[in-house]
C-alpha cells in the first residue's frame, strides 16, 4: 500500500514535469481533453503537429513500457453500456468545461486558477457520488 503512494508521488512528479516542460518550452497548457478535442472539432488544426506528436508519445511510451513492467492492467469493466455511456459523458463534459484532470486539475490548481479549483471540486464530487450510487446503492458497477 505504501509503495503505491510512493509510486503515485513519483508518477505524479513525471506528469507535473511533463506539464512544466510543455509550458516552459512550448508555452502551452498540457491538458489532455483540450489537445484531443481541438483535433476532433477542428478548433486546433492550425497546430495539429504538436497535438499529434504529444498524443503519439502518450500512446507509444506506455506501449513500450508495459511488456517490461509489473502488473499494469486497466481493470476496465466489461459492461459495454457503462463504457459507452461513460465515454460520452467524459467527452462532452470535458469539452463543455474546457478541461479535465490534467488541464483543470494539474495545470489549473498549480496556478491557483479559480476555474481549475471549481472544476476539480465538481468532477471529484460528481465522480464520488456516481461511485456511491452505482456501486453501493444500485450495485451496477
Amino acid at each position, binding site marked *: 500500500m505504501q509503495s503505491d503512494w510512493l509510486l*503515485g508521488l513519483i508518477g505524479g*512528479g513525471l506528469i507535473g514535469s511533463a506539464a512544466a516542460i510543455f509550458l516552459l518550452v512550448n508555452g502551452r497548457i*498540457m491538458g489532455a481533453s483540450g489537445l*484531443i478535442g481541438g483535433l*476532433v472539432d477542428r478548433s486546433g488544426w492550425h497546430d495539429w503537429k504538436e497535438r499529434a506528436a504529444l498524443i503519439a508519445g*502518450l500512446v507509444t511510451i506506455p506501449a513500450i513500457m508495459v511488456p517490461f513492467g509489473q502488473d499494469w492492467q486497466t481493470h476496465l469493466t466489461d459492461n459495454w453500456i457503462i463504457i459507452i455511456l461513460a465515454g*460520452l459523458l467524459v467527452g462532452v463534459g470535458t469539452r463543455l468545461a474546457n478541461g479535465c484532470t490534467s488541464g483543470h486539475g494539474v495545470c489549473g490548481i*498549480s496556478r491557483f486558477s479559480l476555474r481549475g479549483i471549481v472544476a476539480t471540486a465538481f468532477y471529484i464530487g460528481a465522480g464520488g457520488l456516481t461511485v456511491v450510487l452505482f456501486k453501493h446503492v444500485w450495485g451496477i458497477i
Partner: protein
Amino acid sequence: MRSLVSFIVGGLFGAGLLISGMTDTAKVQGWLDIFGDWDPTLAFVMGGAIIPMAVAWRVTIGRKPVLADRFPAPPEPKLGHNLVVGSTLFGMGWGLVGLCPGPAIASLSFSGSGGFAFLIAMLTGMIGAPALRMRLDQMLAPV
C-alpha cells in the same frame, strides 16, 4: 523542434500515468469510493504533479517560453454554467469507469476493445459538445 518536445512531453506524461497507477481504473474508482476500501493514491499523484507545475508557473514570471512568443493568458476568473455542468458530466463518466482523457489515451495499447470503445465514445461526445453548449447557453442566462 516543437513537435519533438511535444512527443517527449507526451511520453513523460504517459510514463507518469502508468507508474502512478492512474491507468488502473480500480485505483481511480478506489479513490472516488469514500464508502468502500478507500485508496488515497490519486491524492499523491495530484500532489506530485502540482508541485513541479507550481514551480514552473513561478518561472514564467517575466520570461518567455523557449520555443514560443508568449505564455498562455492568465486564467479567466469567470466561472459560468458550462464549467459547472461540464465538470459534473465529466465526473459522472469518470466515476462510472475510472478513466479520464489522459489515461484513456495512455492505456490504448493494453486496454483492449473496451478501452477502444471508450475512446470512440469519448471522441463522439467531444463532437457533440458544441451543440450542447449552444443549447445550454440558450437555456441558461450567464451566471
